[in-house]
Each structure stands twice: as C-alpha cells, then as structure tokens.
C-alpha cells in the first residue's frame, strides 16, 4: 500500500452488531483506499453493509475492529470535513432552502458575507435560484436532494459521502441528478464515496467501483473505470461502457444468487 496520504483508508475493518443475543456480521476484513479527488463507488446488493461502511467513514458508528482513516487521521465522530448526503434528503423541514444550506456555516459562526456569495453560486449550480425562501415541503424530491447536495458542498468538505442519494427518486429525475452530479464534480473535484446498488450509476459517475459481497460484506473486487471525462449520459450507450458493465454484472451475479438463497 502506498504510504502517501490517502483521502480515505480502511484497514482491516470489521463490524458486527449485537441484537437480542444474536451477532450479525455486517463487514468483514475491509481494506479500501480512496485517493484524493477520486470518485469511488461502492456497489453491492441491499443489506450487504455498504451503508454501514459509509457510516463508519462518516463517524456515526465505530468499527468493531480495524482502523478508519481520513487524510491519515482516525475518524472519531461526525465532522463537517466528511459531509454526508443521505438517501432521504434529511432537510430541516422548518427551515427554508436558504436556512438549510446556511445551517453549517451559521453553526460554525462564519460571517454572512463569507458564505452568502458561495450559497448564491451553489444555488445557481444546482438550478435552485429563486427557491431560496421555499420550504422543503414545497419542493419536489429531486429539488430537495439538490438542496441537500448544496448544503454539504457549502462546507467545502474534504470528502463527500453519498449514501444512495438518488435511490428514492424516479428514473427520469435520477438521470437528471446524475448529470448534475457529474457537472458539479467537474467543477469541485471532490473526493467522493458513493454508495449505490445501481451498476450503471456506479460506472457512469465513478473512477473506481468496489464490488461488495452479500452479507457479511467484503470487498470482492475493485475495478478501475477508465472512461474519458467529462462524461454525459450518452456514455452509457458506448461499447466500452457496456463491456465494463458486463464485467461488473458477472461479478455480482453469484452474489445476488447467494443473497437470494440465504434468506
């Protein structure tokens, strides 16, 4: 393993949950390194522990064994440097769009003049200019998730953690959001850890795809996605893309079977 500062490094991470005297092995011997500015997708069937993995990096949970390092620093708890976009938008319904996005800066007691231009620019990037004073209840699902993305990007996090952020959106909105995220990434070049169960989504967005096994979750294989950037949705129809897709599908086929037969 290279000894320079990786953005995210998981070293022999195990995680088990104990519920009603039953031990549930969620993660087994995870070794994973994500480089700075890398867009890394974690792909796996539902219940494979990929969200658990993300929660460890976010600091919401501790590993049972092993180390979780972000920029060579052990993760001790949630921190704005490791911002999370959840599957549900998790916006504060009593705050307007503007107040939701400025929640982080206000909490850090930053000067209004420091963050306001940044928010304005982010609102424009996610296409929500003019919706500043709307409440989350007045927005569509896709718009809410765009607010959630702006809310974490305004914190300029070192690592952006995304837990199936488009999982609850309809297919059309999903495509729009994927393109938006590609455009945003071209602009910010964040380190991203992106959890998904959607093969096409992983290949379209990411530089690397780590395929996880069914429970207990292990990293089965890590593929490098050598597709040219900037990318657009049309990429999903190219021969190279489909070749990669076949490769990934083959990897997960026996995992899907295992997951199905174990229930």
């Amino acid at each position: 393993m290279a000894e320079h500062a990786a953005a995210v490094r998981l070293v022999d991470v195990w995680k088990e949950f104990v519920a009603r005297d039953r031990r549930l092995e969620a993660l087994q011997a995870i070794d994973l390194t994500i480089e700075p500015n890398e867009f890394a997708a974690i792909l796996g069937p539902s219940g494979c522990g990929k969200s658990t993995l993300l929660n460890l990096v976010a600091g919401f949970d501790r590993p049972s064994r092993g180390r979780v390092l972000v920029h060579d620093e052990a993760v001790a708890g949630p921190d704005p440097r490791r911002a999370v976009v959840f599957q549900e938008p998790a916006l504060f319904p009593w705050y307007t769009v503007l107040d939701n996005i400025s929640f982080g800066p206000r909490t850090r007691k930053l000067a209004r003049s420091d963050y306001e231009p940044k928010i304005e620019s982010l609102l424009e990037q996610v296409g929500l200019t003019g919706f500043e004073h709307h409440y989350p209840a007045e927005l569509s699902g896709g718009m809410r998730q765009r607010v959630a993305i702006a809310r974490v990007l305004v914190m300029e996090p070192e690592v952006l953690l995304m837990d199936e952020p488009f999982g609850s959106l309809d297919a059309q909105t999903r495509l729009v959001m994927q393109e938006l995220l590609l455009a945003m990434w071209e602009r910010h070049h964040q380190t991203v850890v992106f959890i998904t169960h959607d093969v096409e989504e992983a290949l379209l967005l990411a530089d690397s795809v780590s395929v996880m096994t069914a429970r207990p979750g292990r990293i089965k294989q890590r593929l490098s996605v050598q597709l040219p950037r900037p990318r657009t949705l049309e990429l999903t129809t190219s021969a190279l893309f489909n070749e990669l897709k076949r490769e990934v599908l083959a990897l997960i086929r026996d995992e899907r079977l295992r997951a199905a037969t174990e229930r």
Partner: protein
Amino acid sequence: MPRRGPWFLLLPLLLLVLWHVAVSAQWVLPGIIPAPTQVAESWYRWIFGPPGRSLSPYSGTWLANVLYSSRRVLEGFAIAAAVAIPLGLFIGWNRLVSVVVDPSIQLFRPVPITAWLPFSIAVFGIYDAGALFLIGLGAFYPIVVNTTHGVRDTNLVLLRAARMLGASQATIVRSVVFPSALPSIFTGLRLGVGVAWTAVIVAEMIAVKSGLGYVLWDAYYVGRMDICVATMFSVGLLGFLSDRIIYGVSRVVLRWRTLEAHG
C-alpha cells in the same frame, strides 16, 4: 353530504329544541331544570345588568368573574408550560435525566387533580396560590409527556445531518430537536389548557372565593340553576376559545408543515 355551510349548528339547535320541549312539557324535574329562555335571560342580565343596584346579586358581575378565572388559567398554564417544556426537552434528550425524573412523573400523574385539593388548601390556604398550584399541576402533565414524546420522535437522520454539519449539542436541541418536537408540544398545550379550565373550576368551587367556579357553587347553594347552566356554557365557551387560540398559533408557527409541493 354537503361539506360547506353551517351544518355544525344543526345538532346544537336540535338539542336546544329538545331541551325546551322537555322543560315546557314538564318531562324533567319541574322547577329544577331551567328552560333555555330562562337561562338566556339570566345570562344576559348576569353580563349586561346594572351591577350592585338590582335585586340579583349576579347582575353585571359576569365579566369580572370571567376575568378572575381567565387570569388564573393564564397564569397557571404559563407556569406549567414554562416548567414542562424545558423539562420535557431534558427528559426526552438526556438518558440520565429520563431515568431519574420520568418514573416520578409517571407515578404522580395518575393522582387526580381533585385529590390534591385538601393538600393544596392545607398548604396554600384559600388564596390564589392554591388555585395556581392546582391549575399548574394539572396542565403540567400533558405538556411534559407530549414534549418528551416529541423529542424522542426526532428523526435520527436529521440528528445525524446536524452532527455532520458540525452542530453542538446545544445547537441540535435548539435548532433540530425543539422544532421537531413542536407539533407534539402544541398537542400537549392544547390538552393542558383543557385541564387548566377543569382545575380552575374545581379550585374556585372550594379553595378561593371568586371566579366562575365560585359562582357555579354559590348559585347551586341558593338554587339558581339558571346561573349554574349559564356558568357551564361560559366555561365551555372559554375553554373552546383558548383551544382555538393555541391551535391558531400552532398553524402560524408550524406553517412549514402545511405547505404543499408545486414542483
């Protein structure tokens, strides 16, 4: 079934007619149950009659007694809310406070407010303090229980979102837990104000010498059932009014809940 129009008046009017017929046909206790017209007339004189100069000792004293009772309800209710809301936030948020305080509240709660009367008179005498104690205690329970419940119902993802945005415990309680519990707190306030009106009547019947409760008991002793019934209506209207006021405030404060998406 028509949805608009004054249909809510139908049943009360029918009951009024039934009442009138029952009294004039002497179906019920002649001379004891007053006719609705008699109640209306006495009520009118009680409100608008010249105070002190007429033969009726009640003439013109309605407003003064309404104000006595309302002030007690307002004060007792305010004290209850001021104690119960912060305490409920603590119990719901902090495990230790919950373990130490909650069992005692649950133990005392089944003691009816009426059972506290002798204790209240013994300790506070026949002064306002005794009435405020009973009203405050009665209103305290529903507010504290509903606040606690609202806090415990706070969405875990919202708490995680606040943590990863760098919010301190104090900020989380103020900006996430409290607004999230507000709908439940308002439920508690509405239940609390109802109990407060019950308590004020009980307290005034026995522990103090003014207010609607005092008039009710006094009128019963001198055989003025018309005034008794007018008092019942007065208390009912005031209770209804206080509930509508709290509900109206909640509609404004919780505006973010009633909005609808137009995206």
